[in-house]
């Protein structure tokens, strides 16, 4: 494909295609993009018009499960500042890794008036059991067996 012999129609078609792809990407980001926030950031930010993804920790003693109605309510604290919390409600089945003190990622919308996060999806992460980070493995190995 050299010496300017490439058919002009081919070039136009390729450019049109690439333009279409660029448009799709840009428009899809503005329509499906989700802000990733910590609990503190959610509490602090003034405007929240977009869908949110929030990571935090399940506060001990706040989990309320209604298996009959497949309803789950709990409080989530900031990963670093444990005093900052918000309420979360979720309809659906409880993920396997969900429990008190587990790290969770919620996706949904936040209502400031009631300080409640209405989660559409709920992901739970098992606490660092399988993290193979060298330093952590060593530390935990020592903790468990070094005595």
């Amino acid at each position, binding site marked *: 494909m050299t010496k300017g012999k490439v058919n002009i129609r081919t070039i136009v078609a390729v450019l049109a295609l690439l333009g279409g792809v660029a448009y799709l990407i840009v428009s899809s980001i503005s329509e499906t*993009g989700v802000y990733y926030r910590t609990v503190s950031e959610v509490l602090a930010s003034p405007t929240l018009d977009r869908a949110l993804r929030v990571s935090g920790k399940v506060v001990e003693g706040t989990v309320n499960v209604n298996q009959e109605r497949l309803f789950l309510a709990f409080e989530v604290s900031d990963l670093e500042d444990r005093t900052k919390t918000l309420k979360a409600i979720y309809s659906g089945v409880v993920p396997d890794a969900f429990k008190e003190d587990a790290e969770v990622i919620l996706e949904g919308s936040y209502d400031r008036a009631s300080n409640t996060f209405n989660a559409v999806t709920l992901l739970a992460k098992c606490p660092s059991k399988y993290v193979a980070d060298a330093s952590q493995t060593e530390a935990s190995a020592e903790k468990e067996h070094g005595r």
Partner: protein
Amino acid sequence: MSQFGSYTIYLALAFSLASIVALLLGVSKNDFRYLLSGRRSLAFTALFTTLAAAAMTYLFAADRFDIEYVYSYSDRALPLFYKLTAFWAGQRGSLLFWAWVLSLFALVVVYNTRQDLENRTTPYIYLVLGGTLSFFLYLLATISDPFAVIPGGVVPPDGKGLNPLLQNPGMIFHPPTLFLGYVGFTVPFAYAVAAMVTGKVDETWLRKTRIWNVLSWVFLSIGIILGGQWAYVELGWGGYWAWDPVENASFIPWLVATAFIHTAIIQERRNIMRVWNMVLIVLTFVLCIFGTYLVRSGILQSVHDFGATGLGGFFLFFMFFVMLVGIVLISASYRDLRTDHSLESFLSRESTFLFNNVVLLALAFSTLFGTMFPLISEAVTGNKLTVSQPFFNRVNTPLFLSLILITGLCPLIGWRKASTDNLKKNFLMPLAAMGSGTAVLFVLGVRGVYPLLAFALSIFVAATIGREFWSGTRARARLTGEGALVAFPRLLWNMRRRYGGFVAHLGMVLMVIGITGSNAYKVENQATLQKGQSMSVGEYTLRYDRLGKYSDRNREVYVATLAVFREGQPVGVIRPEKRFYSKADQPTTEVSLRSTLLEDLYVTMPTIGDRTVVTVRAAVNPLVIWVWIGAFIMVGGGVMAVIPRWKRKGEIREIPES
């Protein structure tokens, strides 16, 4: 034994570095003896890397929990074959596996080129292989030592165990096949670099690496599909693909590799797109390294996020280095790579290959962009904006549909320049088939733009392939006097290179049908049931009859028995499970499937409550099985296309120039 393991890594590294030195000396001094010792060093690298892999396997089998890696991923209660597959459960073992496979591939290349040491390209091929090996062996010898013992000399009585999600037959095949694919592309990359360094940039390197390209693509495809199947039966959310960052990390090189194996055909046939192919093979190799890196680096949140270490810098450096080498070599040999020929016409088979490439690369780009977007947006705006499934579905679905369209157009348009008369004749049957098939589907109640389009295009492509099969069979039958039933398989076998491609496309069409059906017509329901209660999903009714419990090896398993009725008729029972592993602090939800050619009934039991009350989640996933069948046919087509022709006795061999 752990020291033995470490020593083998050190020796392997020493030999791979020695091979680099010897080869460089050999090339610069033009001394055959150095080249010979460089090649021998490469073979020794393979020997010691193999011993390291054997040592690792032994350590797992022997429950040597003084080794940090074994301690982290195994325990005594683990069944033996999971102990052995725990080899690649973590990042260190994965890197060792990478290095081991690459060293074996290097050995194969050494064997294949045993007569070719006079050939000027051969030392450079060895150099690239030795260099890549050295990189991985260096990581294994330093920051990612799989044989490291737990500091302080403590020997834990038992290991931490393998993540229950990894205790699935998928663990045996999914990671190794994916790695075989990743590693395999190192060989064509090495040939491409050697071709550019020596200025022998004709299509020789492509012909010699065709089998590597296609088989690596086959392994990558199998790896991705097995991953999807594993997710489907193990993760319990009813899907096989979530545009998860690590899924994307394997899918992006697959897309570029797919583009590459298509334009490689063009270069072999028409001797055009030579620059383009060099770009694609460099990109494929870099993306394979990137995929390996992404799985184990933990820079992105993902279901595969089983580990994190400070490997990132090394990998980024290596990728950057490879890119740089690629850019320098391609621009330096640009003159040689340029060709006088070009795409002559818009309406030609060549241009359908070009558009296939544009679309595949656009898919690769949008997938890469979406995957990296959180990092990009945080760096640019300070806000972490993430995109997930909706983004990928929105952007990639139209691209996939145009890709299917191009697949159908390609065989209908002749090489070079197609005449209008010809086109009319060729398009008639496939278009008629598409029109009538789509009308039937519409009458049957298929609605929605994307599903209708996907099915219509699938019919179109299937019709064009059927047309190829038919005209080929007819021509052969006429020529040989065979009946159609004899002529057709013989045609496929004798012209397997050509028809292998069509078979692969046919597999792709079946996958499209499965993907469309399972996405557009999925029905779901969930309910909390007491014994004797029923729930319905689609045309099925499930009656909860019993809750049982059993324990085996390293776990306790609760199993619910539900009677299944379809349109009121009993069709059997289904048994979702909840497994509590002794070494894990979270249970796993085990899917129970009732699979037919038409639909899958997919049942899980996410929660067991008080007094045997259970929560059941059920879904009807239409046509899912065609995703697996289609994938099987697709990779079968790939394999078929590279089965070598039997060599005749007394074959004519070209005499080397030197």
